[in-house]
């Protein structure tokens, strides 16, 4: 069983703390995605798990063993790098066998394993080429192959798809997912792209500024984001936010900054009277209706045929996106009113950013 | 770790280069012609007579003798024997041969030259064998004189006479250079003494700034500037760098060339039938002195050697009259060995011109002033040579006036003497 356990893991470069105490446990066989904006520390965290980066505080356990002092090579992990980091002076075959040679695997066995992995990843015909003679996708496969061939306990991926074009990315996404199903290993995957996270992950860890914002299943994160940040980060297009204040007398009445008012559901939220709150509604839950509570000035409209996006602003300038299936008659410069079903509303504390959910 | 390994393997590879001899004597030698070859050859006879002794002649560039040998000696890592030119300057490292040799024979054979090796310390040690005596003097292109129809100045002609004659010959024959003197303080000293310079007084006090020295300096600078002297030689170099004008003379571009007896062999072999040349010795100065500079190289043993008796035996072997005569003949040098000199040397394969030249030089030895001998034996003469070459050159190219140059020479000498203490 190769579960990974992070306990109050910290990392500091001199005075600057970049990982500020992260607790996380990844179960055996799970595909876990670290996602977050740039600078959130997700790659650093991955490198700390890999052993390439020292741990300043806390501990990391892999398969129940604390590995803080174990060098990268001995942790039984494999890693796929953003730039692939193939050895440019070696052929594909040499790239794949380098790691096996390092653990003194007998030659016939190396050959057998390399061939097997090459077949699996469909790179057999590339074995005698050098990395510079490969396309981006091929390099990616070789990089993955290099990780696979050593049969590691855990796979680490550091933004492996960010150098590929859009189409290839979708393909590779599928292949990596398929690989996971096939090998059933624990995998940790770092990306800044929440689409990748949503499509591939069993569990997503959302990181920001060295802190874990939320850890959970993709749909849980989508449906019940823990805070404003996660709500805004997960889901595309972004969730709409409108700031306001709960009426001092009526806990279910929200006064938007635009001057408009909105009726909140009676149950489900833990808001207090007079509290500053932020309203969150996903674009696909917003719909234009004459009795909608919020006025939006339309700035641009995207008609994709099967669906359409309307981009606009509230009176106070908050950006609003409305996503609707089918085509829309709303035009540029229109002023529309929008609303959403009560059950699709998210409410956050404006000061702390935390979701106001009834306990 | 790799280093050690590498060291190990190469030590094996090199092992065969140095067979351990019972008595290996290292002889650091430099050649101006074929000296080292000849020594190597005659020493095989010594080796044959002394089994177990191996004298290895290491032929090195002259620069190694001049610049590196003194430092090696100071660090205690010098050779056993060397051929040196800084005779007095290295005297503190010499092995006193006296206990191993026949003092009477040596004193009878080498006379005054033994004093050159005693340096500042003096005493009566026998430190070295003067293997090659040289004397400065002038080579003249007789053919050019003939063509120009100019009478060659006579035996007691002055430097002025020769300058006058050389100028008119050069003008008549369109030869680029009337005169040249090798660029070294040693060659400069001969004429300077003739002009009245004391250089090293009888009490051993050196000076580079007396009237005579200043007079010749002024004259020499003037000659360089009016085209009498080949300007290339002194002005073309810096520091104390040695520069000769033999090439120009050989090419027939130079009428009067003041160099020394060691050039005879080269002139003989390279001038060929291009023109007739002859040696006219050293011209006289206004004071009536007609001195050249003696000089040369000697063979010395070093006191740091493991085998002093063998070193002494080797040098004594070379000092024997027959061997000395043979070497002198084969290398076409003037003998410093009085016995050999008296007997006369039959120079091997020398043309009549060369033989005549060598006799002319030998004859000129009589004219050498006592101060010239003192200068040659003076321990710090090398410093003085350097100072002369450097400062006179500066005066020629105009960096210093003649007066300043002379003043600088005095100051430099004073500083050098202070530092050499």
């Amino acid at each position, binding site marked *: 069983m190769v579960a990974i356990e992070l306990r109050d893991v910290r990392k500091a470069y001199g005075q600057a703390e970049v990982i500020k105490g992260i607790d996380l446990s990844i179960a055996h066989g799970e595909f876990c995605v670290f996602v977050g904006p740039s600078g959130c520390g997700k790659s650093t965290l991955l490198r700390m798990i890999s*052993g390439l980066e020292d741990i300043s505080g806390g501990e990391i356990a892999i398969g129940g063993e604390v590995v803080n002092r174990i060098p990268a090579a001995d942790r039984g992990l494999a*890693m796929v790098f953003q730039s692939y980091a193939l050895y440019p002076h070696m052929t594909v075959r040499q790239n794949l066998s380098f790691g096996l040679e*390092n653990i003194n695997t007998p030659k016939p066995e190396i050959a057998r394993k390399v061939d097997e992995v090459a077949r699996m990843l469909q790179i057999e015909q590339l074995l005698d080429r050098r990395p510079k003679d490969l396309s981006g996708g091929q390099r990616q496969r070789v990089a993955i192959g290099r990780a696979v061939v050593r049969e590691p306990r855990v796979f680490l991926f550091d933004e492996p798809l960010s150098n590929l074009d859009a189409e290839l990315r979708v393909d590779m996404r599928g292949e990596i997912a398929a690989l996971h199903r096939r090998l059933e290993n624990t995998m940790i995957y770092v990306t800044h792209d929440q689409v990748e996270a949503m499509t591939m992950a069993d569990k997503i860890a959302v990181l920001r500024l060295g802190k874990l914002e939320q850890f959970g299943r993709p749909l849980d994160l989508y449906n019940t984001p823990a805070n404003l940040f996660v709500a805004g980060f997960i889901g595309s297009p972004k969730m709409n936010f409108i700031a306001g204040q709960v009426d001092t007398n009526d806990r279910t009445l929200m006064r938007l900054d635009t001057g408009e008012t909105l009726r909140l559901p009676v149950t489900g939220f833990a808001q207090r009277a007079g509290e500053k709150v932020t309203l969150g509604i996903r674009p696909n839950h917003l719909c234009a209706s004459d009795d909608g509570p919020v006025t939006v000035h339309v700035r641009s409209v995207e008609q994709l045929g099967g669906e359409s996006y309307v981009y606009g602003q509230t009176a106070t300038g908050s950006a609003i996106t409305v996503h609707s299936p089918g085509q829309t008659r709303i035009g540029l410069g229109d002023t529309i009113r929008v609303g959403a079903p009560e059950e699709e509303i998210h409410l956050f504390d404006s000061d702390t950013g935390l979701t106001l959910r009834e306990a | 770790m790799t280093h050690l390994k590498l060291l190990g393997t190469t030590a094996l590879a090199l092992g065969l280069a140095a067979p351990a001899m019972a008595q290996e004597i*290292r002889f650091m030698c430099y050649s*101006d012609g074929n000296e080292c070859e000849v020594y190597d050859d005659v020493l095989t006879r010594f080796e044959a007579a002394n089994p177990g002794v191996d004298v290895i002649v290491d*032929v090195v560039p*002259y620069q190694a003798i001049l610049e590196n040998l003194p430092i090696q000696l100071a660090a205690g890592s010098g050779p056993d024997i060397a051929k040196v030119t800084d005779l007095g300057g290295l005297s503190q490292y010499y092995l006193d041969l006296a206990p191993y040799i026949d003092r009477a024979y040596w004193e009878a054979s080498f006379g005054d030259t033994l004093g050159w090796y005693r340096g500042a310390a003096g005493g009566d040690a026998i430190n070295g064998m003067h293997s090659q005596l040289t004397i400065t003097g002038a080579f003249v292109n007789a053919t050019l004189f003939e063509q120009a129809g100019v009478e060659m100045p006579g035996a007691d002609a002055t430097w002025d006479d020769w300058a006058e004659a050389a100028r008119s010959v050069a003008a008549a024959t369109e030869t680029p250079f009337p005169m040249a003197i090798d660029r070294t303080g040693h060659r400069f000293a001969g004429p300077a003494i003739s002009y009245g310079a004391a250089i090293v007084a009888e009490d051993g006090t050196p000076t580079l700034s007396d009237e005579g020295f200043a007079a010749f300096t002024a004259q020499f600078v003037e000659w360089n500037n009016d085209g009498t002297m080949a300007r290339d030689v002194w002005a073309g170099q810096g520091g104390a760098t040695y520069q000769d004008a033999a*090439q120009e003379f050989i090419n027939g571009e130079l009428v009067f060339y003041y160099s020394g007896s060691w050039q005879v062999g080269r002139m003989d072999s390279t001038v060929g039938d291009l*023109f007739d040349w002859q040696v006219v010795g050293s011209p006289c100065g206004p004071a009536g002195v007609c001195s050249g500079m003696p000089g040369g190289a000697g063979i010395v043993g070093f006191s740091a050697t493991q085998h002093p008796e063998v070193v002494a035996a080797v040098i004594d072997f070379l000092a024997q009259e027959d061997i000395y005569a043979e070497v002198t003949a084969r290398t076409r040098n003037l003998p410093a060995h009085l016995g050999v000199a008296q007997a006369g040397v039959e120079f091997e394969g020398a043309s009549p011109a060369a033989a005549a030249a060598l006799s002319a030089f030998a004859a000129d030895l009589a004219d050498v002033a006592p101060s010239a001998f003192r200068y040659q034996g003076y321990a710090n003469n090398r410093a003085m040579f350097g100072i002369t070459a450097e400062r006179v050159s500066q005066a020629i190219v105009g960096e210093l006036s003649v007066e300043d140059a002379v003043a600088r020479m005095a100051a430099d000498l004073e500083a050098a003497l202070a530092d050499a203490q």
Partner: protein
Amino acid sequence: MGRTWEFLTATRGGARLHWTDWASYGYLFLGVFLMFFPVVWLVLSSFKTEADLQRYPPTFLPYQQQTITLDGHADPLPLFRITGGEHEGMILAQLRRVGLQAQMIDPANPEERLQVSIRDYERLERFSLATENYSDLFGRFNFLLYFWNSTFITVMATLIMLLTNSMAAFALSKYRFRGRTVVLLLVIGTLMIPQTVVLVPLFLIVSELGMFNSLWGVIIPGAATPTGVFLLRQYMLTIPDEILDAARMDKASEWKIYWRIILPLSAPAIAVLAILAIMWRWNDFLWPLIVLTQSENFTLQLALNSFQGELQTQWSSLLAMTVLTLLPIAMVFMFLQKYIATGIASTGGK
């Protein structure tokens, strides 16, 4: 100067040569001439006889006086073409020259002596290489031994230098450790002290270490060069750290990373350094002169200079000697030249 600025944009795709192209090629060919002609001239001159060397104006190719051997004359006699006077047009052999007159004989009629003014004749010559300049050199010493010594010193010093310098460069470019900046500054600091000014202390140290009169006394002191460390470090900085990380994940030890990843990837820079090191060691004169005094240890440079006496220099042997020492360097250069540009990394910003 303006011509080259055009090249900065270099977006012109036309096949026709623009005038700036002409200017560039003009500049480059001028460069070829300036860089090569002196060397070519040196090589050609080294095949001239001492007499030919002294000729003015010089000829481009080496020529030698034509001679003829006649009965009654032991030495071959030089041949001349008579260009004026009563014997105009004849080819005569010179017996002897006396001043402006030459005594000559007609090879067809060797009995009669003719007087010719030297203004009226010119030498008969033909193209000929004075290979004796070289063979004389070889004849004078044990060429193979000195060549071996030089080669041994050069190869060993180069290998040690490449090894130690690349190890140091690896440490300085790929590790973060305390004191890295200090070490880097020290390395650059050693640039400030050329070997020439520390000859005496260096000699004393080498003597103390017992390396005097040993080839190692030449090899070891030259092995650590700031230039080498600097050059390799700049190059290694451009190798992405991710490749090292990948190797670490592949269970490679740091030493393995060094020799299986870093060394092969730095090959171009190492080639450049190898060229420079080989050149430095092979050409070295002053230091071997001090350390090596026994002839069995001499390098080629020392041996070739060993007949530089106090008083005489001969151009013909000097030139031949120079060409001889130049040759191995030129060969190495030809083999490794393709690396010289790729091997110097941009030093920008790191």
